């Protein structure tokens, strides 16, 4: 089983300093395993620590204690240069498509940035790769030389996804990546993510507060409550037989469309 584990957290704790020498614990002694090729969803209400946990896994934040193990290597102690090869293998899609794209860069440069960072390709090959990526996220070729503000929210998120898959990572982390989008656009992006995941064999850590969205995309679901993991299970079992009181409460709160529909 363990060679199947892509990334895992062991007893990870993270706290932030507050003004006046107080500390706010954001993630409290959490352990979690994520398998290769699966989509694992982290769900919970705001402030439950799901985003912090994801950033800890990606080493965008440093944990106070505990270990992060990526593909058999403990990366929690690595820093700077030693960490870089792992950065290449994990990429992130952010919540707000508007603020996660540099407003002063053209789409071509945004998507090419990871390629340039890794000196992967020459200029011509980079352009070709960017075109290929644009096609994968269903954007037109003409998008290359435009600025982010010339796109709608959904299109910006596609650009963000193209950047994330540019280096063929093993893992992409989607931090509330569809929650800022309108329903009709959200559905398009969800479909795109699901398709890319299948085509590219990605593992995906999907963070969301929306249990219906999670139900659509996730293989396994991890419910977080108050900085800790409350319940973790296969999506199907979790939705049909929630074990914990809190999970049941969360599920019952979703404003579902109650009339049986006919499609």
């Amino acid at each position: 089983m363990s060679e199947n584990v892509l990334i895992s957290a062991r007893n990870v704790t993270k706290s932030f300093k507050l003004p006046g020498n107080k500390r706010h614990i954001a993630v409290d002694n959490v352990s979690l395993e994520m398998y290769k090729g699966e989509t694992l969803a982290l769900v919970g209400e705001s402030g439950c620590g799901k985003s912090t946990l994801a950033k800890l896994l990606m080493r965008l934040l440093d944990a106070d204690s505990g270990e992060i193990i990526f593909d058999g290597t403990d990366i929690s102690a690595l820093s700077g240069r030693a960490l870089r090869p792992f950065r290449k293998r994990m990429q992130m899609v952010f919540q707000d498509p508007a603020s996660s794209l540099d407003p002063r860069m053209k789409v071509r440069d945004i998507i090419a940035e990871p390629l340039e960072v890794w000196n992967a390709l020459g200029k011509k090959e980079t352009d070709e790769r960017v075109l290929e990526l644009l096609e994968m996220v269903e954007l037109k070729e003409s998008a290359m030389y435009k600025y982010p503000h010339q796109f709608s929210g959904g299109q910006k998120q596609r650009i963000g996804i193209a950047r994330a898959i540019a280096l063929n990572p093993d893992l992409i982390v989607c931090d509330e990546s569809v929650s800022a989008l309108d329903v009709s656009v959200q559905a398009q992006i969800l479909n795109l993510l699901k398709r890319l995941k299948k085509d590219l064999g990605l593992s995906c850590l999907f963070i969301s507060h929306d249990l219906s969205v999670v139900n659509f995309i996730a293989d396994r679901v991890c419910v977080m409550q108050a900085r800790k993991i409350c319940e973790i299970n296969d999506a199907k079992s979790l939705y049909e037989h929630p074990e914990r009181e809190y999970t049941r409460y969360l599920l019952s709160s979703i404003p579902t469309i109650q009339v049986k529909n006919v499609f």
Partner: protein
Amino acid sequence: MKKEKRQNAAADILRACLKNKAALIPGIIILIVIALSVFGPLLTHYDETSQDLLNRLMPPGNGHIFGTDELGRDVFTRVLYGTRVSLLVALLPTALAVAAGCAAGVCAAEFKGATDFIIMRLADIMLSIPGMLLAMVVLYTLGGSLTSVVISLVLIEWGGIAVVVRTATLEIRESEFVEAAVSTGAGRFRVMMRHILPNLVPTLIVLFTLNIPSSILSESGLSFLGIGIQPPDVSLGLMAGSSRQYLFQMPHLALAPAGMIMVLVLSFNFLGDALRDILDPGRRTL
């Protein structure tokens, strides 16, 4: 690639300025003033320092557009030459102060810790001395001259600029697109060159334009008091100061140079405001 991108950004800003009347009009006025002061000698057949004691304190007219001063020098010519000094004082120390403030602010935000603490306390120290008095300390040590005025203006201004640049840098560093760049593996240097500096440019342009007026005003104040630029160098403030005693007989002697200062400062303030509106990323609609 990089060069082409930067040119385009500059062209975008320029195009927006040309479309915006609030930026265009003061811009044109400033260009006219610059042209006047550069080509000044061609417009008048007087010399800025040659005295004509027979024709002292002449009223405007008779070949002297603004009349003559207490030593019979042509006031119009002297205003043109004084404007040169004002423009020099507007641009040079402000540019130096923006460069120094930008370097200090970015360093403070980037290195944090002790560097941040020291730079910011230094800025605090500068900011807690009134500009005029700080300049007087410099002038005490170095004596009144153009050079010492430039040095004091840089000292007065860099601190405030550093504080603004530091805040702006921290804000950009916190933004998601920088986080995105870091998560792709981009190093510190790349983040700085590709993301932080380009996004600082609008802030710097606005800081530059809005600090020019205070430079002009400070220089003119110092020279007015007779402790800034010294004769025989010409300065608008100096002219206003030395003709103060003739205020009631010949008000235009003091008011002509003062009016020129006002036109310059007003134009730069207008331009700065317009640029801030154009460049404000929040409202940016290029």
